[in-house]
Protein backbone atom coordinates (compact mmCIF):
# COMPACT_ATOMS: atom_id res chain seq x y z
CA UNK A 1 0.00 0.00 0.00
CA UNK A 2 2.67 2.44 1.01
CA UNK A 3 4.57 1.42 -2.07
CA UNK A 4 1.62 2.42 -4.22
CA UNK A 5 1.45 5.77 -2.48
CA UNK A 6 5.15 6.26 -2.93
CA UNK A 7 4.89 5.46 -6.58
CA UNK A 8 2.01 7.88 -6.91
CA UNK A 9 4.05 10.54 -5.18
CA UNK A 10 6.92 9.83 -7.50
CA UNK A 11 4.68 10.23 -10.54
CA UNK A 12 3.20 13.36 -9.04
CA UNK A 13 6.64 14.81 -8.53
CA UNK A 14 7.68 13.88 -12.03
CA UNK A 15 4.58 15.51 -13.42
CA UNK A 16 5.22 18.64 -11.41
CA UNK A 17 8.77 18.89 -12.63
CA UNK A 18 7.58 18.40 -16.19
CA UNK A 19 5.10 21.19 -15.69
CA UNK A 20 7.74 23.37 -14.16
CA UNK A 21 9.92 22.73 -17.19
CA UNK A 22 7.05 23.50 -19.54
CA UNK A 23 6.49 26.71 -17.62
CA UNK A 24 10.11 27.61 -18.17
CA UNK A 25 9.63 27.29 -21.90
CA UNK A 26 6.30 29.08 -21.99
CA UNK A 27 6.89 31.83 -19.43
CA UNK A 28 10.59 31.98 -18.78
CA UNK A 29 11.69 32.45 -22.33
CA UNK A 30 9.38 35.29 -23.24
CA UNK A 31 10.24 38.95 -22.66
CA UNK A 32 10.76 40.89 -20.64
CA UNK A 33 14.24 39.56 -20.09
CA UNK A 34 15.96 40.00 -16.79
CA UNK A 35 19.32 40.56 -18.40
CA UNK A 36 21.00 42.16 -15.46
CA UNK A 37 20.03 39.35 -13.16
CA UNK A 38 21.00 36.82 -15.83
CA UNK A 39 24.51 38.26 -16.00
CA UNK A 40 24.69 38.35 -12.27
CA UNK A 41 23.67 34.71 -12.05
CA UNK A 42 26.10 33.77 -14.81
CA UNK A 43 28.80 35.42 -12.77
CA UNK A 44 27.83 33.61 -9.60
CA UNK A 45 27.10 30.28 -11.22
CA UNK A 46 29.86 30.27 -13.79
CA UNK A 47 32.77 32.35 -12.69
CA UNK A 48 32.51 31.59 -9.01
CA UNK A 49 32.36 27.84 -9.64
CA UNK A 50 35.54 27.88 -11.65
CA UNK A 51 37.99 27.45 -8.76
CA UNK A 52 36.14 24.40 -7.45
CA UNK A 53 35.64 22.89 -10.88
CA UNK A 54 39.24 23.67 -11.79
CA UNK A 55 40.59 22.03 -8.68
CA UNK A 56 38.55 18.86 -9.04
CA UNK A 57 39.27 18.69 -12.75
CA UNK A 58 42.98 19.07 -12.16
CA UNK A 59 43.05 16.35 -9.54
CA UNK A 60 40.87 14.11 -11.66
CA UNK A 61 43.20 14.44 -14.65
CA UNK A 62 46.24 13.78 -12.53
CA UNK A 63 44.79 10.82 -10.67
CA UNK A 64 43.23 9.26 -13.73
CA UNK A 65 46.59 9.34 -15.47
CA UNK A 66 48.39 7.83 -12.52
CA UNK A 67 45.75 5.13 -12.15
CA UNK A 68 45.75 4.20 -15.81
CA UNK A 69 49.48 4.05 -16.21
CA UNK A 70 50.23 0.69 -14.55
CA UNK A 71 47.82 -1.27 -16.69
CA UNK A 72 49.01 0.45 -19.83
CA UNK A 73 52.58 -0.31 -18.84
CA UNK A 74 51.59 -3.95 -18.36
CA UNK A 75 50.32 -4.03 -21.90
CA UNK A 76 53.36 -2.22 -23.15
CA UNK A 77 51.37 0.68 -24.50
CA UNK A 78 52.43 3.35 -22.09
CA UNK A 79 52.88 5.67 -24.99
CA UNK A 80 49.12 5.58 -25.48
CA UNK A 81 48.56 7.12 -22.06
CA UNK A 82 47.83 10.64 -23.34
CA UNK A 83 45.38 9.26 -25.86
CA UNK A 84 43.54 7.17 -23.31
CA UNK A 85 43.40 9.92 -20.73
CA UNK A 86 42.50 12.54 -23.30
CA UNK A 87 39.60 10.54 -24.63
CA UNK A 88 38.38 9.59 -21.17
CA UNK A 89 38.48 13.18 -19.99
CA UNK A 90 36.90 14.78 -23.00
CA UNK A 91 34.23 12.20 -23.60
CA UNK A 92 33.09 11.30 -20.14
CA UNK A 93 35.07 12.17 -17.06
CA UNK A 94 35.26 15.89 -17.75
CA UNK A 95 31.58 16.49 -18.46
CA UNK A 96 30.25 14.18 -15.77
CA UNK A 97 32.61 15.13 -12.96
CA UNK A 98 32.16 18.81 -13.72
CA UNK A 99 28.40 18.38 -13.82
CA UNK A 100 28.36 16.49 -10.53
CA UNK A 101 30.51 19.07 -8.80
CA UNK A 102 28.31 21.70 -10.36
CA UNK A 103 25.19 19.94 -9.11
CA UNK A 104 26.71 19.77 -5.65
CA UNK A 105 27.64 23.41 -5.56
CA UNK A 106 25.04 25.14 -7.67
CA UNK A 107 22.11 22.76 -7.32
CA UNK A 108 22.25 22.98 -3.56
CA UNK A 109 22.80 26.71 -3.49
CA UNK A 110 19.89 27.35 -5.83
CA UNK A 111 17.71 24.95 -3.87
CA UNK A 112 18.64 26.57 -0.58
CA UNK A 113 18.49 30.13 -1.85
CA UNK A 114 15.10 29.85 -3.51
CA UNK A 115 13.90 27.68 -0.65
CA UNK A 116 14.74 30.28 1.95
CA UNK A 117 13.35 33.02 -0.27
CA UNK A 118 10.17 31.06 -0.49
CA UNK A 119 10.01 30.40 3.23
CA UNK A 120 10.75 33.99 4.20
CA UNK A 121 8.15 35.19 1.71
CA UNK A 122 10.72 36.98 -0.44
CA UNK A 123 9.23 35.32 -3.48
CA UNK A 124 5.81 36.62 -2.51
CA UNK A 125 7.37 40.01 -1.95
CA UNK A 126 8.65 39.95 -5.50
CA UNK A 127 5.26 39.06 -6.84
CA UNK A 128 3.79 41.95 -4.91
CA UNK A 129 6.45 44.27 -6.27
CA UNK A 130 5.42 43.43 -9.81
CA UNK A 131 8.29 41.10 -10.54
CA UNK A 132 7.60 37.70 -11.99
CA UNK A 133 9.61 35.49 -9.66
CA UNK A 134 9.56 32.76 -12.23
CA UNK A 135 11.30 35.00 -14.70
CA UNK A 136 13.49 36.82 -12.31
CA UNK A 137 14.59 33.87 -10.23
CA UNK A 138 13.97 30.69 -12.20
CA UNK A 139 14.48 31.61 -15.82
CA UNK A 140 17.70 33.46 -15.14
CA UNK A 141 19.13 30.66 -13.06
CA UNK A 142 18.14 27.91 -15.45
CA UNK A 143 19.56 29.84 -18.38
CA UNK A 144 22.71 30.57 -16.44
CA UNK A 145 23.26 26.95 -15.46
CA UNK A 146 22.54 25.80 -19.00
CA UNK A 147 24.99 28.25 -20.51
CA UNK A 148 27.68 28.12 -17.85
CA UNK A 149 28.10 24.39 -17.39
CA UNK A 150 29.40 23.81 -20.94
CA UNK A 151 31.87 26.63 -20.48
CA UNK A 152 32.94 25.25 -17.14
CA UNK A 153 33.29 21.84 -18.70
CA UNK A 154 35.52 23.16 -21.46
CA UNK A 155 37.73 24.95 -18.99
CA UNK A 156 37.62 21.95 -16.69
CA UNK A 157 38.64 19.65 -19.53
CA UNK A 158 41.56 21.90 -20.33
CA UNK A 159 42.68 22.00 -16.71
CA UNK A 160 42.13 18.27 -16.42
CA UNK A 161 44.29 17.64 -19.46
CA UNK A 162 46.96 19.81 -17.95
CA UNK A 163 46.74 17.69 -14.82
CA UNK A 164 47.05 14.61 -17.00
CA UNK A 165 50.10 16.12 -18.64
CA UNK A 166 51.71 16.56 -15.24
CA UNK A 167 50.60 13.04 -14.37
CA UNK A 168 52.39 11.65 -17.39
CA UNK A 169 55.47 13.58 -16.45
CA UNK A 170 55.65 12.19 -12.95
CA UNK A 171 57.00 8.85 -14.13
CA UNK A 172 58.23 9.62 -17.60
CA UNK A 173 58.99 12.62 -19.70
CA UNK A 174 56.76 14.01 -22.36
CA UNK A 175 57.03 17.39 -23.93
CA UNK A 176 53.90 19.45 -23.76
CA UNK A 177 53.84 19.61 -27.54
CA UNK A 178 53.89 15.86 -27.92
CA UNK A 179 51.25 15.34 -25.25
CA UNK A 180 49.09 17.96 -26.84
CA UNK A 181 49.57 16.47 -30.27
CA UNK A 182 48.77 12.95 -29.13
CA UNK A 183 45.63 14.03 -27.33
CA UNK A 184 44.32 16.05 -30.20
CA UNK A 185 45.25 13.49 -32.79
CA UNK A 186 42.97 11.02 -31.11
CA UNK A 187 40.12 13.49 -30.69
CA UNK A 188 37.37 13.83 -33.19
CA UNK A 189 34.37 16.10 -33.43
CA UNK A 190 32.30 13.09 -32.54
CA UNK A 191 34.16 13.00 -29.23
CA UNK A 192 33.93 16.65 -28.40
CA UNK A 193 30.56 17.77 -29.71
CA UNK A 194 28.28 15.21 -28.03
CA UNK A 195 30.22 15.72 -24.81
CA UNK A 196 29.64 19.44 -24.87
CA UNK A 197 26.06 19.20 -26.02
CA UNK A 198 25.20 16.88 -23.21
CA UNK A 199 26.55 19.34 -20.68
CA UNK A 200 23.92 21.80 -21.89
CA UNK A 201 21.34 19.28 -20.75
CA UNK A 202 23.19 18.57 -17.52
CA UNK A 203 23.21 22.28 -16.77
CA UNK A 204 19.55 22.60 -17.64
CA UNK A 205 18.69 19.69 -15.37
CA UNK A 206 20.66 21.15 -12.47
CA UNK A 207 18.98 24.51 -12.93
CA UNK A 208 15.46 23.19 -13.30
CA UNK A 209 15.71 20.73 -10.44
CA UNK A 210 17.34 23.24 -8.11
CA UNK A 211 14.74 25.89 -8.89
CA UNK A 212 11.86 23.45 -8.67
CA UNK A 213 12.97 22.16 -5.30
CA UNK A 214 13.58 25.64 -3.98
CA UNK A 215 10.39 27.06 -5.39
CA UNK A 216 8.36 24.31 -3.79
CA UNK A 217 10.14 24.36 -0.50
CA UNK A 218 8.00 23.75 2.54
CA UNK A 219 8.05 26.02 5.53
CA UNK A 220 10.88 26.08 8.01
CA UNK A 221 14.60 25.66 7.93
CA UNK A 222 14.12 21.94 7.63
CA UNK A 223 12.17 22.48 4.44
CA UNK A 224 15.01 24.55 3.03
CA UNK A 225 17.52 21.89 3.97
CA UNK A 226 15.43 19.23 2.33
CA UNK A 227 15.11 21.34 -0.80
CA UNK A 228 18.83 21.86 -1.06
CA UNK A 229 19.58 18.24 -0.38
CA UNK A 230 17.01 16.76 -2.72
CA UNK A 231 18.03 19.24 -5.40
CA UNK A 232 21.56 17.83 -5.33
CA UNK A 233 20.45 14.22 -5.19
CA UNK A 234 17.87 14.51 -7.92
CA UNK A 235 20.04 16.56 -10.24
CA UNK A 236 22.94 14.14 -9.80
CA UNK A 237 20.68 11.25 -10.71
CA UNK A 238 19.34 13.23 -13.65
CA UNK A 239 22.89 13.82 -14.83
CA UNK A 240 23.52 10.10 -14.96
CA UNK A 241 20.24 9.42 -16.69
CA UNK A 242 20.93 12.10 -19.27
CA UNK A 243 24.42 10.69 -19.68
CA UNK A 244 22.94 7.28 -20.39
CA UNK A 245 20.51 8.77 -22.87
CA UNK A 246 23.28 10.77 -24.49
CA UNK A 247 25.43 7.73 -25.06
CA UNK A 248 22.49 5.85 -26.54
CA UNK A 249 21.62 8.73 -28.82
CA UNK A 250 25.16 9.24 -30.04
CA UNK A 251 25.34 5.51 -30.63
CA UNK A 252 22.13 5.59 -32.63
CA UNK A 253 23.34 8.53 -34.64
CA UNK A 254 26.49 6.61 -35.39
CA UNK A 255 28.70 9.22 -33.83
CA UNK A 256 30.49 6.85 -31.53
Amino acid at each position, binding site marked *: MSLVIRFKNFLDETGNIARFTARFFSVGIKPRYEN*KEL*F*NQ*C*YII*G*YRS*LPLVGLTAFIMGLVLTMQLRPSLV*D*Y*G*VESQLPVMVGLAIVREIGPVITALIFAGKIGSSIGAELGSMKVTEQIDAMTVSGIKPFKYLVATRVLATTLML*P*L*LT*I*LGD*AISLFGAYLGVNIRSVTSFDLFFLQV*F*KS*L*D*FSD*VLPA*IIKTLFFGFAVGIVGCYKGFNSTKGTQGVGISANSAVVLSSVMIFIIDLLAVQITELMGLN
Partner: protein
Amino acid sequence: MRNPKANNIKLGAFVLSALVLMIFAFFIIGKNNNIFGNDFRLKVQFSNLNGLTKGNNVLFSGLQAGTVKEVELINDSTIEVTMQINSKVKSFIHKNALAAVGTEGLMGNKVVNISPVKGISKKVEEGDLLKVKNTANMDEIIAKLSKTNDNVAIISEVLKGTVLRIDSSAILKLINDQSIGINLKASLKNIYKTTSNANEMTIGLNHLVNDIKKGKGTAGLLLTDTSMASTLKDAIVQIKAAGVNANQMTNQMNTMVKDLNHELTNGKGPLNRLLKDSLTAKNISLTIENLQKGTDGFNQNMEALKHNFLFRGYFRKLDSKKKEEQSELLKSSQKK
Protein backbone atom coordinates in the same frame (compact mmCIF):
# COMPACT_ATOMS: atom_id res chain seq x y z
CA MET B 1 26.02 42.24 -7.16
CA ARG B 2 28.02 44.64 -5.02
CA ASN B 3 30.21 45.71 -7.89
CA PRO B 4 28.43 44.82 -11.10
CA LYS B 5 31.04 46.25 -13.42
CA ALA B 6 33.99 44.33 -12.02
CA ASN B 7 31.86 41.21 -11.96
CA ASN B 8 30.89 41.68 -15.56
CA ILE B 9 34.53 41.96 -16.53
CA LYS B 10 35.32 38.72 -14.72
CA LEU B 11 32.35 37.01 -16.29
CA GLY B 12 33.42 38.26 -19.68
CA ALA B 13 36.93 36.91 -19.19
CA PHE B 14 35.52 33.59 -18.05
CA VAL B 15 33.16 33.21 -20.99
CA LEU B 16 35.71 34.37 -23.51
CA SER B 17 38.45 32.07 -22.30
CA ALA B 18 36.11 29.09 -22.48
CA LEU B 19 34.91 30.03 -25.93
CA VAL B 20 38.42 30.63 -27.19
CA LEU B 21 39.47 27.25 -25.86
CA MET B 22 36.53 25.60 -27.57
CA ILE B 23 37.14 27.28 -30.89
CA PHE B 24 40.82 26.48 -30.66
CA ALA B 25 40.08 22.83 -29.95
CA PHE B 26 37.59 22.66 -32.79
CA PHE B 27 40.09 24.23 -35.10
CA ILE B 28 42.78 21.73 -34.26
CA ILE B 29 40.44 18.79 -34.45
CA GLY B 30 39.13 20.12 -37.71
CA LYS B 31 42.62 20.26 -39.08
CA ASN B 32 43.23 16.68 -38.03
CA ASN B 33 39.92 15.53 -39.26
CA ASN B 34 40.22 17.19 -42.66
CA ILE B 35 36.72 18.46 -42.23
CA PHE B 36 37.67 21.80 -43.61
CA GLY B 37 39.85 20.43 -46.42
CA ASN B 38 38.37 18.89 -49.52
CA ASP B 39 39.02 15.20 -49.43
CA PHE B 40 38.66 12.59 -52.06
CA ARG B 41 37.82 8.93 -51.95
CA LEU B 42 39.69 5.84 -52.97
CA LYS B 43 38.44 2.31 -52.93
CA VAL B 44 40.06 -1.04 -52.48
CA GLN B 45 38.64 -4.54 -52.38
CA PHE B 46 39.98 -7.07 -49.93
CA SER B 47 39.11 -10.67 -49.42
CA ASN B 48 39.80 -10.41 -45.73
CA LEU B 49 39.82 -7.28 -43.61
CA ASN B 50 41.40 -8.85 -40.55
CA GLY B 51 39.23 -6.65 -38.42
CA LEU B 52 39.65 -3.36 -40.25
CA THR B 53 36.74 -1.09 -39.45
CA LYS B 54 35.28 2.26 -40.23
CA GLY B 55 37.39 5.07 -38.82
CA ASN B 56 40.71 3.26 -38.99
CA ASN B 57 43.60 5.21 -40.37
CA VAL B 58 44.92 5.07 -43.89
CA LEU B 59 48.65 5.45 -44.22
CA PHE B 60 50.46 6.35 -47.41
CA SER B 61 54.05 5.18 -47.13
CA GLY B 62 53.55 5.36 -43.40
CA LEU B 63 52.19 8.90 -43.51
CA GLN B 64 48.76 9.59 -42.07
CA ALA B 65 46.74 10.18 -45.22
CA GLY B 66 43.12 9.64 -44.29
CA THR B 67 40.57 7.37 -42.72
CA VAL B 68 38.40 4.43 -43.64
CA LYS B 69 34.97 5.83 -44.39
CA GLU B 70 32.98 2.79 -45.34
CA VAL B 71 33.22 -0.94 -45.31
CA GLU B 72 30.86 -2.82 -47.55
CA LEU B 73 30.46 -6.51 -48.11
CA ILE B 74 30.11 -7.08 -51.82
CA ASN B 75 30.11 -10.85 -51.96
CA ASP B 76 31.37 -13.73 -49.89
CA SER B 77 34.98 -13.13 -50.82
CA THR B 78 35.09 -9.43 -51.52
CA ILE B 79 34.81 -6.53 -49.15
CA GLU B 80 35.01 -3.05 -50.52
CA VAL B 81 36.68 -0.45 -48.37
CA THR B 82 36.14 3.22 -49.14
CA MET B 83 38.83 5.50 -47.84
CA GLN B 84 38.72 9.23 -47.37
CA ILE B 85 42.09 10.61 -48.34
CA ASN B 86 43.48 14.01 -47.61
CA SER B 87 43.68 15.97 -50.82
CA LYS B 88 47.20 17.06 -50.00
CA VAL B 89 48.38 13.51 -50.56
CA LYS B 90 46.39 13.12 -53.73
CA SER B 91 49.06 14.19 -56.16
CA PHE B 92 51.51 11.65 -54.73
CA ILE B 93 49.40 8.53 -55.07
CA HIS B 94 49.57 6.83 -58.42
CA LYS B 95 47.10 4.45 -59.92
CA ASN B 96 49.41 1.49 -59.56
CA ALA B 97 49.81 2.01 -55.81
CA LEU B 98 49.05 -1.04 -53.75
CA ALA B 99 46.88 -1.21 -50.67
CA ALA B 100 47.04 -3.69 -47.85
CA VAL B 101 45.53 -4.18 -44.45
CA GLY B 102 48.18 -3.83 -41.79
CA THR B 103 48.54 -3.21 -38.13
CA GLU B 104 49.58 -0.02 -36.44
CA GLY B 105 52.78 -0.98 -34.68
CA LEU B 106 52.91 -4.59 -33.63
CA MET B 107 49.49 -4.57 -32.11
CA GLY B 108 46.85 -1.90 -32.02
CA ASN B 109 44.51 -0.67 -34.67
CA LYS B 110 44.26 -2.01 -38.15
CA VAL B 111 45.29 0.36 -40.87
CA VAL B 112 45.21 0.42 -44.61
CA ASN B 113 48.72 0.82 -45.93
CA ILE B 114 49.00 2.34 -49.36
CA SER B 115 52.44 1.91 -50.81
CA PRO B 116 53.78 3.34 -54.07
CA VAL B 117 55.10 1.02 -56.74
CA LYS B 118 57.96 1.80 -59.10
CA GLY B 119 57.00 2.41 -62.66
CA ILE B 120 55.09 5.07 -64.49
CA SER B 121 51.43 5.43 -63.84
CA LYS B 122 48.81 8.13 -63.78
CA LYS B 123 47.82 9.88 -60.60
CA VAL B 124 44.76 8.61 -58.84
CA GLU B 125 41.38 10.17 -59.28
CA GLU B 126 38.29 10.32 -57.14
CA GLY B 127 36.82 6.89 -56.57
CA ASP B 128 39.71 4.88 -58.06
CA LEU B 129 40.04 1.26 -57.10
CA LEU B 130 43.49 0.35 -55.86
CA LYS B 131 45.06 -3.07 -56.19
CA VAL B 132 45.77 -5.21 -53.20
CA LYS B 133 49.28 -6.06 -52.13
CA ASN B 134 50.24 -9.20 -50.31
CA THR B 135 52.17 -8.29 -47.26
CA ALA B 136 54.25 -10.01 -44.72
CA ASN B 137 53.14 -8.74 -41.43
CA MET B 138 52.26 -10.23 -38.13
CA ASP B 139 49.17 -11.83 -39.53
CA GLU B 140 51.13 -13.58 -42.16
CA ILE B 141 53.82 -14.71 -39.79
CA ILE B 142 51.12 -16.31 -37.78
CA ALA B 143 49.60 -17.74 -40.92
CA LYS B 144 52.97 -19.21 -41.85
CA LEU B 145 53.33 -20.56 -38.39
CA SER B 146 50.09 -22.36 -38.66
CA LYS B 147 51.05 -23.62 -42.10
CA THR B 148 54.28 -24.95 -40.63
CA ASN B 149 52.27 -26.76 -38.09
CA ASP B 150 50.06 -28.15 -40.76
CA ASN B 151 53.20 -29.43 -42.37
CA VAL B 152 54.37 -30.89 -39.11
CA ALA B 153 51.11 -32.70 -38.83
CA ILE B 154 51.32 -33.99 -42.37
CA ILE B 155 54.89 -35.09 -41.94
CA SER B 156 54.14 -36.95 -38.80
CA GLU B 157 51.17 -38.49 -40.53
CA VAL B 158 53.38 -39.57 -43.37
CA LEU B 159 56.00 -40.84 -40.98
CA LYS B 160 53.38 -42.77 -39.14
CA GLY B 161 52.08 -44.21 -42.36
CA THR B 162 55.56 -45.17 -43.41
CA VAL B 163 56.32 -46.81 -40.15
CA LEU B 164 53.08 -48.69 -40.26
CA ARG B 165 53.83 -49.86 -43.72
CA ILE B 166 57.32 -50.88 -42.77
CA ASP B 167 55.99 -52.60 -39.74
CA SER B 168 53.30 -54.49 -41.56
CA SER B 169 55.47 -55.31 -44.51
CA ALA B 170 56.43 -58.91 -44.40
CA ILE B 171 59.57 -58.05 -46.30
CA LEU B 172 61.04 -56.35 -43.32
CA LYS B 173 60.92 -59.50 -41.37
CA LEU B 174 63.20 -61.04 -43.92
CA ILE B 175 65.98 -58.54 -43.38
CA ASN B 176 69.23 -60.26 -42.94
CA ASP B 177 71.73 -57.69 -43.88
CA GLN B 178 73.48 -56.50 -40.79
CA SER B 179 74.45 -53.19 -42.31
CA ILE B 180 70.88 -52.46 -43.20
CA GLY B 181 69.98 -53.28 -39.72
CA ILE B 182 72.48 -50.79 -38.39
CA ASN B 183 71.36 -48.14 -40.84
CA LEU B 184 67.85 -48.77 -39.91
CA LYS B 185 68.74 -48.42 -36.30
CA ALA B 186 70.46 -45.12 -36.93
CA SER B 187 67.47 -43.86 -38.87
CA LEU B 188 65.16 -44.93 -36.20
CA LYS B 189 67.26 -43.08 -33.68
CA ASN B 190 67.02 -40.04 -35.85
CA ILE B 191 63.28 -40.40 -35.99
CA TYR B 192 63.19 -40.81 -32.28
CA LYS B 193 65.15 -37.62 -31.81
CA THR B 194 62.90 -35.79 -34.17
CA THR B 195 59.81 -36.90 -32.44
CA SER B 196 61.19 -35.99 -29.05
CA ASN B 197 62.08 -32.64 -30.57
CA ALA B 198 58.53 -32.32 -31.72
CA ASN B 199 57.34 -33.26 -28.29
CA GLU B 200 59.44 -30.62 -26.66
CA MET B 201 58.21 -28.14 -29.15
CA THR B 202 54.69 -29.05 -28.25
CA ILE B 203 55.35 -28.67 -24.57
CA GLY B 204 57.07 -25.38 -25.23
CA LEU B 205 54.19 -24.12 -27.24
CA ASN B 206 51.86 -25.23 -24.52
CA HIS B 207 53.74 -23.08 -22.07
CA LEU B 208 53.64 -20.29 -24.53
CA VAL B 209 49.92 -20.61 -24.87
CA ASN B 210 49.56 -20.46 -21.15
CA ASP B 211 51.69 -17.36 -21.04
CA ILE B 212 49.70 -15.84 -23.79
CA LYS B 213 46.52 -16.58 -21.97
CA LYS B 214 47.84 -14.78 -18.94
CA GLY B 215 49.03 -11.97 -21.16
CA LYS B 216 52.61 -12.29 -20.04
CA GLY B 217 55.80 -11.77 -22.02
CA THR B 218 56.33 -10.10 -25.32
CA ALA B 219 54.62 -12.85 -27.19
CA GLY B 220 51.63 -12.47 -24.92
CA LEU B 221 51.51 -8.79 -25.65
CA LEU B 222 51.81 -9.28 -29.32
CA LEU B 223 49.09 -11.78 -29.34
CA THR B 224 46.49 -10.00 -27.32
CA ASP B 225 44.81 -9.43 -30.60
CA THR B 226 42.15 -12.07 -30.43
CA SER B 227 42.27 -13.06 -34.06
CA MET B 228 46.00 -13.72 -33.84
CA ALA B 229 45.66 -15.62 -30.65
CA SER B 230 43.06 -17.91 -32.11
CA THR B 231 45.18 -18.56 -35.16
CA LEU B 232 48.08 -19.49 -32.95
CA LYS B 233 45.87 -21.66 -30.81
CA ASP B 234 44.77 -23.57 -33.87
CA ALA B 235 48.37 -23.95 -34.86
CA ILE B 236 49.27 -25.29 -31.48
CA VAL B 237 46.44 -27.74 -31.46
CA GLN B 238 47.77 -29.06 -34.72
CA ILE B 239 51.29 -29.26 -33.39
CA LYS B 240 49.97 -31.14 -30.43
CA ALA B 241 48.22 -33.58 -32.70
CA ALA B 242 51.44 -33.94 -34.59
CA GLY B 243 53.23 -34.60 -31.36
CA VAL B 244 50.77 -37.31 -30.45
CA ASN B 245 51.21 -38.83 -33.85
CA ALA B 246 54.94 -38.73 -33.47
CA ASN B 247 54.63 -40.37 -30.10
CA GLN B 248 52.57 -43.17 -31.50
CA MET B 249 54.99 -43.50 -34.30
CA THR B 250 57.87 -43.74 -31.92
CA ASN B 251 56.19 -46.48 -29.96
CA GLN B 252 55.55 -48.44 -33.09
CA MET B 253 59.10 -47.88 -34.21
CA ASN B 254 60.33 -49.07 -30.90
CA THR B 255 58.38 -52.30 -31.00
CA MET B 256 59.37 -52.77 -34.58
CA VAL B 257 63.01 -52.27 -33.80
CA LYS B 258 62.76 -54.71 -30.96
CA ASP B 259 61.16 -57.28 -33.21
CA LEU B 260 63.73 -56.63 -35.80
CA ASN B 261 66.56 -56.92 -33.36
CA HIS B 262 65.14 -60.09 -32.04
CA GLU B 263 64.90 -61.57 -35.45
CA LEU B 264 68.30 -60.36 -36.50
CA THR B 265 70.02 -61.78 -33.47
CA ASN B 266 68.18 -65.05 -33.78
CA GLY B 267 68.72 -65.09 -37.52
CA LYS B 268 66.05 -67.63 -38.18
CA GLY B 269 62.80 -67.89 -40.04
CA PRO B 270 62.03 -68.59 -43.70
CA LEU B 271 61.99 -64.94 -44.57
CA ASN B 272 65.65 -64.54 -43.99
CA ARG B 273 66.37 -65.93 -47.36
CA LEU B 274 64.20 -63.50 -49.18
CA LEU B 275 66.16 -60.63 -47.80
CA LYS B 276 69.26 -61.81 -49.42
CA ASP B 277 67.95 -60.19 -52.53
CA SER B 278 70.00 -56.99 -52.64
CA LEU B 279 67.34 -55.15 -54.56
CA THR B 280 64.91 -55.46 -51.75
CA ALA B 281 67.58 -54.27 -49.42
CA LYS B 282 68.24 -51.26 -51.59
CA ASN B 283 64.59 -50.44 -51.66
CA ILE B 284 64.42 -50.54 -47.97
CA SER B 285 67.50 -48.36 -47.79
CA LEU B 286 65.83 -45.85 -50.02
CA THR B 287 62.72 -45.88 -47.93
CA ILE B 288 64.74 -45.25 -44.89
CA GLU B 289 66.60 -42.43 -46.61
CA ASN B 290 63.33 -40.82 -47.50
CA LEU B 291 62.26 -41.21 -43.97
CA GLN B 292 65.38 -39.45 -42.87
CA LYS B 293 64.83 -36.65 -45.32
CA GLY B 294 61.32 -36.26 -44.05
CA THR B 295 62.46 -36.00 -40.49
CA ASP B 296 65.17 -33.56 -41.51
CA GLY B 297 62.55 -31.38 -43.09
CA PHE B 298 60.52 -31.59 -39.98
CA ASN B 299 63.50 -30.61 -37.92
CA GLN B 300 64.14 -27.69 -40.19
CA ASN B 301 60.62 -26.51 -39.77
CA MET B 302 60.99 -26.67 -36.10
CA GLU B 303 64.25 -24.80 -36.34
CA ALA B 304 62.62 -22.09 -38.43
CA LEU B 305 59.91 -21.77 -35.88
CA LYS B 306 62.49 -21.37 -33.17
CA HIS B 307 64.12 -18.53 -35.03
CA ASN B 308 60.95 -16.69 -35.50
CA PHE B 309 61.59 -13.51 -33.61
CA LEU B 310 58.38 -13.94 -31.69
CA PHE B 311 59.54 -17.01 -29.89
CA ARG B 312 63.22 -16.36 -29.85
CA GLY B 313 63.38 -15.28 -26.28
CA TYR B 314 61.22 -18.09 -25.19
CA PHE B 315 63.21 -20.80 -26.90
CA ARG B 316 66.44 -19.49 -25.60
CA LYS B 317 65.14 -20.34 -22.18
CA LEU B 318 63.86 -23.66 -23.42
CA ASP B 319 67.25 -24.44 -24.91
CA SER B 320 69.06 -24.16 -21.64
CA LYS B 321 66.44 -26.36 -20.05
CA LYS B 322 66.83 -28.86 -22.83
CA LYS B 323 70.56 -28.99 -22.32
CA GLU B 324 70.09 -29.76 -18.69
CA GLU B 325 67.65 -32.49 -19.48
CA GLN B 326 69.95 -33.95 -22.07
CA SER B 327 72.84 -34.07 -19.70
CA GLU B 328 70.60 -35.79 -17.21
CA LEU B 329 69.50 -38.22 -19.87
CA LEU B 330 73.11 -38.89 -20.73
CA LYS B 331 73.91 -39.58 -17.11
CA SER B 332 71.07 -41.97 -16.72
CA SER B 333 71.95 -43.79 -19.93
CA GLN B 334 75.55 -44.04 -18.81
CA LYS B 335 74.37 -45.65 -15.61
CA LYS B 336 72.54 -48.21 -17.66
